């Protein structure tokens, strides 16, 4: 039973990461942007675990655990922001919010 080579995992993580990035850049809907960020974080987890297993260490896993905490925190705060954004303007289309324009 040969093992799945590491490169495949890295390849998978890379593609997922890229999809996440494209999602963030392209979509105007705040919620979907958040989801793409989640995808990017997961992509990172995959490569962590892959290396972890390859190097026979547990640090990767601890790190991905931390990533998950951060992700959770980030989602909660992000969604709270979206809600408050939604309150002052009835849309969550990111392009509406360009008051910061110089």
């Amino acid at each position: 039973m040969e093992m799945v080579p590491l490169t495949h995992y890295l390849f998978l993580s890379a593609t997922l990461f890229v999809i996440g990035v494209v999602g963030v850049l392209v979509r105007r809907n705040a919620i979907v942007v958040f989801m793409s960020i989640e995808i990017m974080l997961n992509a990172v987890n995959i490569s962590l675990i892959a290396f972890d297993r390859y190097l026979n260490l547990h640090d990767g896993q601890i790190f991905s655990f931390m990533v998950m905490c951060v992700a959770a925190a980030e989602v909660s705060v992000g969604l709270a922001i979206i809600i408050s954004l939604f309150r002052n303007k009835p849309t969550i289309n990111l392009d509406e919010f360009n008051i910061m324009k110089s």
Partner: protein
Amino acid sequence: MLLKLTSLVPLYPLIGCIINGFFGLRIGKNAVGLIAAGSVGLSFLTTLIIFIGLVMTPAEERVFEQVLFTWMAVGDFTAEFGFQVDPLSMTMMLFVTGVGFLIHVYSIGYMHEEYSFYRFFAYMNLFMFSMLLLIMGNNFLIMFIGWEGVGCCSYFLIGYYFEKKSACDAGTKAFVMNRVGDFAFLLAVMYIFNIFGSIDFTTVFHAAPEKLIYDSETVTIITMLLFVGACGKSAQIPLYTWLPDAMEGPTPVSALIHAATMVTAGVYMVVRCNALFALAPITMWTVAFIGGATAIFAATIGMTQFDIKRVLAYSTVSQIGYMFMAVGVGAYTAAIFHMVTHAFFKACLFLGSGSVIHGLHGEQDMRKMGALKSHMPITFVTFFVSTLAIAGIFPLSGFFSKDEILYHALMDGNFILWGMGITGALLTAFYMFRLVFMTFFGKSNVDPQVHPHESPKIMTMPLVILAGLAFFGGALGIPLFHGWHILHNWLEPVFYFDMPSALEHSAHLLHEQGKHAPSWSHLLQPEGDHNVWVEIALMLLSLSIAVAGIFGAYICYIKKPHLPDLLTEGQWGYDLVKNKYEVDEIYDETIVKPTLEGSKLLWKECDAKGIDGAVNGTAQILGWLSNQARNFQSGFVRNYALFMVVGFIGLLIVTL
């Protein structure tokens, strides 16, 4: 011992000037006039005393130097403030202070009803001080102080009636043209210091033969620059246009500055530097020819002018041309002799014309004069005597001095020079008598409500003295009889220049530089014999020329008054000469306008657009750049994310 008083001579006019300058208004007109004339009189007396002192000392050591203090001392350049008295400067001092004194007395009367009486006399005294400084200075820098001081005072005095724009323009023009001359003079002084390491007359002129090679480039450049300086000051061909305009000033000013003293400063300077000029034959020829050319050129213009003072101004320019001609051929004594006699009769002519103008309450145009003979007897007599003198009629001084110049021009110079001289003499006789006939003889076309009157005593008395001097001035240089030429014996030691040893040194220096010495034998043959018959013949010839000129004037202006109009109307030659060959206009077009346009161009284009443009340009570019950068802050979160990603990827690409 008596010579110790030299520093007093310039001091009196200076004190006079300061007193008049500061307290003029308070002490009233008579006091101001008294102080001014008195100070010049005092300096004249001290000059006489010094003259006596100088005559008593034996001929060889008749050079007395008195140094007051070191003015500038930097490195091995030292300029002391000192005076030098030798026969040459003594003659100059004598006639400058003498004529100056008479003119001061005259101007007390002439300027009486002027409001700023004190200002006039303050400037006149300042002028006397600078002129004396120029004459008595013992080095080039002191001469230069006098040189520019004189130019500056002539600027003030020409612009005395400062309400009149023409007077101010004339003053500025005079000062700037003098400045052009001073520019060349300054360069010459620097060149001299560069070669001799000192600017004192004694050291420079003694070292001249050793240091300078005969007819070498350096000596020619120095002497050329000195001559340009002299032209600027003595109004010769290229730089003469300021003198006729200087007639805007009051008449005593024209008499003192533009006839007797300042304009002769150039001749004095060239004569003083004869040691340098003797080594530069090319410059000597240019001096002679420019002198001759100016003599004729100015005489022709003089013939066509109708303003009485303009005629006299052009006659001054032409007479100084004679002096330069004499200097050019090496006859320095003749030049000084003519300068002295010229001071006498020209001052008398100017003062005479002043009293005519004074009598006619400011009328200067000859066409509105005539038959003043009866109204102004004294002025007429003195004027007539001086005109005879300037024309060169036998017993009077003009005859002797002019004849001597013509003689030397023929003997030492060449035939063309002599020809110029003779035609000049003819023209001088003609226009001088034209002036006399138009003003004093003929029918009186003075406009009726002006009734001419004789000038007061204080004005006519100097006229009489000057006329006397003009009459007996010839005694200074009686030709033919050996030893009778007082001036020659008096000035001879100053002009002694040992040409053979100078040529030896030059040949020696040339050998050192490896160049071969050209043959200078033609210079070494002895002085031509002074055969008497040639001189007498010349005298008779010039006398007849003068008489011919007078007769011509008599025909044109007394016998057939309409003849001149007949001959001249329509002729383009006449019109050309009438408006002074358009020299002024040419200068305007070629020099004044282009500089003004050029500097406007410089200012607008180079400064405003060029450099400022560049500076403001960079400012605008920076502004534009920062504007572009502003667009990056588009406010869309997405763009920021994109920049982050792009940045990150760029890093990635760079590092991997």
